[in-house]
């Protein structure tokens, strides 16, 4: 009964967020702009590197695209908190908090929209990369979409948690930038970490998203029953759980 109520409210909130996005689809494509630039202007640079550790000759696209999709999941979701700050400021969130709607529905509806937007973007990038010789293992690809969805949930929840904590665009922007840049540099998104000196590889080990990148590459190669995949999923699920829980906590605290 209570679950059905929360589910219905999540659906209502999702519809509202989706309407906002569809009314302003330009954002969906602006987010795509950067990954596409990487695809067309950066990936060709890697071609001549083929043969170095972690980048087998002729297969650079196979290594690069799974990383790029993780980057899209990270960065596309990292800044969703700005929309929330705006709605906190204009009193929309407060109005929802006065209704009997379940607290988690307010966040889940938004997260669901973030995931849908991301999956559409991932499909577009993958299709654009096919002419470059990207080989896609269908089963692995579908599972990798689940992985990206979880990464997006973790990143978006973190963004929402900070938004609820700071309630200010400026603080949110600097915090997110401070986190997002090292996280992406230390995850082997652009180039495999096999190229990195040992100390850098050790540093990357504490970055949960580097496991996501490894899992993503394994899945694209069709290695579904791979230790990297399991490790990647466990870590990303844990992260998503922790960040979602802290976002909900901040939302409850807002009414205190």
């Amino acid at each position: 009964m209570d679950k059905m109520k929360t589910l219905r409210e999540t659906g209502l909130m999702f519809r509202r967020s989706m309407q906002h996005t569809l009314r302003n689809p330009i954002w969906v494509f602006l987010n795509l702009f950067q990954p596409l630039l990487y695809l067309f202007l950066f990936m060709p640079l890697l071609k001549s590197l083929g043969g170095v550790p972690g980048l087998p000759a002729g297969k650079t696209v196979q290594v690069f695209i799974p990383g790029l999709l993780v980057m899209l999941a990270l960065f596309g979701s990292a800044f969703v908190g700005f929309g929330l700050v705006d709605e906190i400021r204009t009193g929309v969130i407060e109005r929802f908090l006065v209704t009997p709607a379940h607290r988690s529905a307010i966040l889940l509806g938004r997260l669901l929209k973030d995931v849908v937007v991301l999956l559409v973007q991932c499909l577009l990038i993958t299709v654009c990369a096919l002419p470059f010789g990207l080989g896609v293992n269908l089963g692995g690809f579908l599972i990798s979409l689940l992985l990206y969805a979880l990464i997006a949930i973790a990143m978006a929840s973190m963004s929402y948690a900070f938004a609820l904590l700071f309630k200010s665009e400026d603080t949110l922007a600097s915090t997110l930038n401070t986190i997002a840049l090292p996280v992406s540099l230390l995850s082997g998104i652009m180039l495999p970490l096999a190229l990195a000196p040992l100390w850098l590889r050790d540093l990357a080990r504490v970055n949960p998203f580097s496991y996501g990148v490894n899992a993503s590459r394994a899945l694209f190669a069709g290695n579904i029953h791979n230790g990297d995949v399991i490790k990647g999923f466990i870590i990303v699920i844990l992260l998503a759980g922790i960040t979602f829980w802290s976002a909900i906590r901040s939302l409850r605290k807002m009414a205190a």
Partner: protein
Amino acid sequence: MSNSIIVTKNLRKTFITKAKGKKQSVEAVKGINLEIGKGEIFGFLGPNGAGKSTTQKMLATLLLPSAGEARVNGYDLSTQQQDIRRCIGYVSQSGGTDSLSTGLENLVLQAQLYGLDGVTAAKRAEEFIDRFQMTSFAERRALSYSGGQRRRLDLALGMIHHPDVLLLDEPTVGLDPQSRAYLWREIRHLRDEGITVLLTTHYLDEADKLCDTVAIIDNGEIVAAGTPSQLKDDIGADSLVFGFASEQTAQQAQALLVDRAPAENTQVEDHLLRLRLSRGEQALPALLRLLDTQHLPVLSISLAKPSLDDVFLKHTGRSLREDQAHG
């Protein structure tokens, strides 16, 4: 009272803020006791920062009280928040419209969040669009609304689920005279249906003409409460204001009249001398003659029956009108 629908006992809110690394506490609400009957229009009248919004936010389950207890519609504020949410409607001072959605979408979603199914919600939304005369703009995004149009949407959002208790924080700010008159009629109509309305206002006439009971609140405390006529009767005196050429003259006149006039209370504000006395119209000629003989020329005169402003003045030593004039 057994049919009280809102009861608070010693309700308090102290905000702890950090300024320049030092902890500061703001006592926004200092122990408020309320008993509001079912179907009553209850008004909080007070200046900026008095604690009106803070009190309402606590009753709306948006702020945790620092101390004290409250019951809304029989439900305990500290343990039965979800039950309270189901039976109240709240319109905050700054509103809460989703500006990226249309007015219609705002209303339908709000009704659905209170459990109405899609069809009923859509019908209800149409009904409110009609009642609040929003037809011409309801299908536009709220982004483009004028201040008053947005306020009307805020109010409709707070009422769409037919709450038993309605909390309205400065509902008429920004409304044109017609919309304001309409809202007053609507609020009285709700009262007649047994709905309890707790509103806040800085407008004296709103408190006086619309509210059944008024609580005057200042600095987080209720300084006087009662029906508007009770409150004014307590003053018992008329307010007489003489205008002089300068503050100095006004002070001279005050010194003169303190001994000689039957005034209960005199006060100088700028070049104005304010006196409170009973039967002002009879006392006036003698006072004028007296001032004339002392060569203190009076430039203007106003005589008014007691207003809620006088009640406020009596209890706080300040005028609410002045507060308003200075923003």
